[in-house]
């Protein structure tokens, strides 16, 4: 994706929704791209690495059950700026997904609803750039709540570590064979970088693993000198 088109789309969204009476949170999100410095080093910006655990991958039926996020500032993962909360999915939690994230319905009974948690998450996020592994999935679930709640999509930029991995580690895939796909899985990358996060498959554990992988991938991308935010978005931005 191109950072300039993201900024253009943001202008358009602002034109459309700017005059509506908006929740302050929504209004803040509309100006999430105001402080970007596309030609400055990417790592001079704040990032929020996010991971969602869901009841499944069916966009129509499935819902979020937990949110985990870490902030990266100046290239370092801030252990003090952590977002971690269970979400009441408002539906049953299928057994096969419980096997993955080990969140059982009882745990979510007292959890808040998605829109409440999401509101707090937006405050935590601020105008940081989001990072996720297979970011489109997370982005879809977030936009789902966002549009329902505020009438427009998330304005923050989103970086996909899978795309970073393809550029940094895997040779170009001209014929779309997706040979390297398996090597870009979170497990494969964690193995490759010898990152052992024992709390894998919790939203926060996966977010931490993704954050650690992001640090490594950034370093590999910067091998020949730092890269600008515009470059990073060009390589790995999704929308």
């Amino acid at each position, binding site marked *: 994706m191109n950072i300039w088109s993201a900024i253009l789309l943001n202008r358009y969204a602002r034109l459309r929704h700017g005059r509506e009476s908006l929740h302050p949170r929504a209004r803040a999100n509309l100006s999430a791209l105001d402080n970007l410095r596309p030609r400055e080093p990417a790592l001079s910006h704040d990032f929020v690495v996010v991971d969602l655990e869901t009841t499944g991958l069916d966009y129509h039926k499935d819902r979020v059950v937990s949110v985990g996020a870490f902030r990266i500032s100046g290239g*370092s*993962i*801030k*252990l003090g700026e*952590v977002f971690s909360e269970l979400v009441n999915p408002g539906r049953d939690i299928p057994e096969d997904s419980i096997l993955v994230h080990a969140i059982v319905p009882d745990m979510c009974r007292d959890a808040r609803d998605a829109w409440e948690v999401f509101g707090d998450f937006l405050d935590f996020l601020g105008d940081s750039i989001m990072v996720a592994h297979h970011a489109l999935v997370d982005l879809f679930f977030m936009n789902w709540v966002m549009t329902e709640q505020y009438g427009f999509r998330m304005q923050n930029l989103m970086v996909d570590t899978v795309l970073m991995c393809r550029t940094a580690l895997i040779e170009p895939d001209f014929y779309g064979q997706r040979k390297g796909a398996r090597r870009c899985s979170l497990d494969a990358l964690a193995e490759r970088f010898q990152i052992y996060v024992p*709390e894998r498959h919790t939203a*926060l554990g996966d977010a931490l693993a993704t954050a650690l992988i992001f640090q490594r991938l950034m*370093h590999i991308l910067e091998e020949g000198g730092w890269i600008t935010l515009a470059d990073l978005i060009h390589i790995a931005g999704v929308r």
Partner: protein
Amino acid sequence: MSDFPLARILDFVRTVSPFDTLDPEELNNLVRRMDIAYFPPGSKVVRQGGDPARYLYIIHSGSVKLTSTEEDGRETLVDVRGEGDTFGGLSLLHSEKGHFTVTAQEDLLAFVLPAADFISLVETHPGFQRHFKFSLAAHDQSIRGLTDGFLVQMTGADPWGDMALQMHNRISELMNSPVLTCPTNTTVRQAAQAMSQRQVGSIIVVDESGGPLGVVTDTDMRSRVLAQGLSAYTPVNQIMSSPVRTLSQRAFAFEAMLEMTRQGVHHMVVADGNRLLGMISDHDIKIITGSSPVGLVTQIDKVTSFPELARLPRRIYRVLNMLLRLGVSAEYMLDLLAEFSDRLTLRLIQITEQEMDVEGMGPAPAPFAWLALGAWGRREPTPPAGQEHVLVMADMPADQAARALPWFQEMARRVKQGLAGCGFPPCRSGLLADAAGGCRTFSQWRERFLGWAREPVAREMETAAHFFDFRAITESGLFEDPLRQTVLEAIERNRVFLRILARAGLESHLPLGFMRQFVVEKSGEFTSELDLDVKVMQPIVQAARVLALDQRVELTGTFDRLEEVAARGLLHRQLADDLHEAFSFLSLMRISRYLEARARDSQPEISLDAESLNKLQRKMLKDIFSVVGDLQELMTKRYGARPAGALG
């Protein structure tokens, strides 16, 4: 505030000393102040002389090396730190520029704590204060395996810790400059006037170009002029101590201390080549240390009773402790230990002689020599080295010898007990001067040695080996040199002896099971305990001994022997250097383990538990095993073939 959501991160930080002293609540809050930072291999995390550090770094995975760049551009490795170690603390505490350059060796993942949080921790927690105040001095802790508990414990009670830091001062900061000088034709009287005018205790005699030629001290004036009745108009060059011992201005204070200790002097001249810069005395060092370790060794000579002597070892261990933290080499420490134990033995012998005379048993009935054997003979008595010694009496008629024997045996018994009282237990092999056959006349000993050399018997070789490291402690070179020459000649005539001696050494196998343990996960099959001395150090010692005897090298120290044998081309230079390194490391490890046990007031363990080793130590040991393996292979090739003939 709720618990930190990732328990494993808390668990990790909890294991890092001194964070393990925090209560859960504090730890929980502290972890939230930390960041996780990543550094690729080769990146410089802190630069020497660069901006003051902004963080304390706790290594989560990977390792870093600390290097220091000298003024001449040489880079020296100060330390390697691994998982669970910290760095950056010292520079933070003093808000100074980085002391060392810290470079990531592998992918480095570190938890970093901002300066402000770290400093407030140090201010409010005595444990942190003790730990980080000495982190510089403890730089070799990770290599030498002093546990953090030990350090905190030691530094808590030990005033030497503070000193350790200061001993890293350069001489140039401590020396007296300018110094009082005079030309060679100055009279003693003029020199004395100049000295009292400047109120100094010494004057340096210089040549026309200002280069130092000699030193004259107050003591010299007293002992060499007044006591000798020389005229006040004697030129100073007749009484000066010359040549002068010089030190570089870049040397560390502890180096000056060691140098003075080794040479038994109280002043040293600081010079850059031939250019006189200043003067340093043990008094200047005393100001740092509060007491003078320089005097420790020489002080032994002034002690007059057993109980007084028995108090000295405690001091030598404190000095060792400090040296260990300063990162002083194993050779220096062994040297100091040897010097100490030699003088201690000598003094014990002298005191005993006097005592026995006073008790009416009379003086020594004949001249004698006290021979140190084994590790003592090699000048490497790494504690807890057991005493090994024999006594040589001068040749005399048989009836006279029979009468003299009880006196010598009594003396040997007392000296042995004295040494035991100083913390040196008698050795297990029973090679002691008071044991049966421990006192013999020169001719009897000569026969004994020749017997071994001419007709070696494999089962006696282990004992005999200890004898071949003999060294006279009493000053009587009367017996030592002839004995050594006889032995070396006999060996040269009977090369079979070397093969048998070598094979006796090859019988101890490297503990490969222990080594596999490093690779494979712990399972019941492999022993996890290792006697470092017997299994790893002795093969090196034995090989060095055989090679040295082979080449008629008279030196007894393992370092010296290896060096000499390598110089003669019998050992590959690389292997010799590796062995040197290995032996240093093992000696240091033994010394530090001994000191650690002493500090805990527990019996030093003889064997090493594989599980108590950190990653770095394991790596070192693995390397050492492979070096020792190479050496054993070489020995097998050279001496391994079964000797033809006589012994079958």
